[in-house]
């Protein structure tokens, strides 16, 4: 089948014809192309094991295995193309979908994900992530803006101030992401801006992941005394990831200005009736 793509004057995103997943991002005016595969996965929450009886819970993230399970191996896609917006709607499963969106004049790709209610009928707690896989040689390093203060370098299985004995290969490499996470090979940089605080990591070179939703069946024994389990059928969450691809040299300008616009976004108020037009002066 023909390759699905969306494009404006700055960006082109193409999707894999077999899987429907995002395949490449191309920055046209900077002549940058990066193979980016993005999909949703879930970690099976630990309920305790031989090493430790620690369960995953409200305070603790502890998956039972390091490899996450794909929500789906392919997504059903639909394309909406108009002069004002181009969108690829991806349906991964009954509880996971996404819209990949490009507006004219926009230098970033907008991924609006909808996840939930997470099914737990199989008695497995699930911690759902959105993962971006690229061929970037990142040498175990990624960056997050933890605590909203400054971008900090994070190195896999490493702490700058002590010799780390890594006992949790996934959770031990997760860091808070307040507004952005990025990976770079020194030439190209892939940045993802979040619309809320999330956990994030880069567990393999060229890979970047953000946790978008979780639903657990066991209390972690850290004081809350309740499993992180919504009553009834559970809740769904909708959020946005803004994806920027740029040269490592130019990237900071782009993600800083976009983050300002995202975190202090224009507010919309409506008034019924015709009213009179307002002139700035």
């Amino acid at each position, binding site marked *: 089948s023909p390759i699905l793509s969306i494009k404006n004057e700055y960006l082109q995103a193409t999707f894999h014809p077999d899987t429907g997943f995002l395949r490449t991002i191309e920055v046209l005016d900077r002549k940058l192309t990066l193979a980016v595969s993005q999909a949703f996965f879930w970690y099976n929450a630990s309920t305790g094991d031989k090493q430790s009886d620690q369960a995953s819970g409200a305070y603790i993230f502890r998956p039972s295995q390091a490899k996450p399970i794909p929500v789906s191996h392919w997504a059903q896609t*639909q*394309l909406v193309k*108009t002069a004002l917006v181009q969108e690829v709607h991806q349906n991964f499963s009954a509880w996971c979908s996404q819209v990949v969106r490009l507006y004219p004049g926009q230098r970033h790709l907008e991924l609006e994900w909808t996840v939930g209610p997470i099914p737990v009928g199989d008695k497995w707690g699930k911690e759902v992530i959105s993962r971006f896989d690229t061929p970037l040689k990142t040498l175990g390093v990624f960056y997050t803006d933890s605590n909203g203060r400054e971008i900090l370098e994070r190195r896999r299985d490493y702490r700058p101030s002590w010799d780390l004995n890594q006992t949790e290969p996934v959770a031990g490499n997760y860091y808070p992401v307040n507004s952005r996470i990025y990976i770079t090979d020194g030439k190209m940089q892939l940045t993802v801006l979040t619309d809320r605080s999330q956990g994030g990591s880069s567990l393999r070179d060229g890979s970047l992941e953000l946790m978008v939703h979780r639903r657990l069946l066991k209390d972690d024994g850290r004081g809350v005394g309740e499993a992180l389990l919504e009553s009834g059928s559970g809740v769904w969450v909708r959020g946005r990831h803004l994806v920027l691809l740029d040269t490592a040299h130019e990237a900071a300008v782009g993600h800083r200005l976009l983050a*300002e616009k995202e975190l202090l976004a*224009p507010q919309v*108020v*409506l008034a019924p009736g015709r009213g009179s037009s307002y002139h700035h002066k």
Partner: protein
Amino acid sequence: YGDSAPLNEAMAVLQHHDAVSGTSRQHVANDYASQLAAGWGPCEVLLSNALAKLSGSKESFSICRDLNISFCPVSQTSAHFQVIVYNPLGRKVDQMVRLPVSEGLFLVKDPRDKTVPSKVVELPNTGNTELLFPALVPALGFSIYSVTQVSIRRPRAHLRQPRPQKSR
């Protein structure tokens, strides 16, 4: 009378990590939500008063609390309505405004009474339709756009049918 103090106080309470990270018991989470909702009510009045004063006209402003699920009674039922876009940033920004509408074609005019390009897009699988138009907002200011429904015929955005995927 509008008042921002209750929302200030609710936000101060919500600085606690329990409110941010999901480490609270469910009834506490419910209470956080309740405090936020109670604080937002008088703040809406304050915002409406400010907008009425700045625009020089007293309007019945409507601030949608359900925009996250694309539901808005004003834009979905009114034949005429105004869209006020406020920009809290110290530089001008352009923003694509998306509003849920029922059906039909719409005429959108900018603050200078010029028609701006707009499009009604039908969202796949949901049957919902949204009106899109680009808005330009000055630094630390706002722009008012007027929207008029000019036809009630169903819009037809270019929508391709679901693509069958190879099974694995």
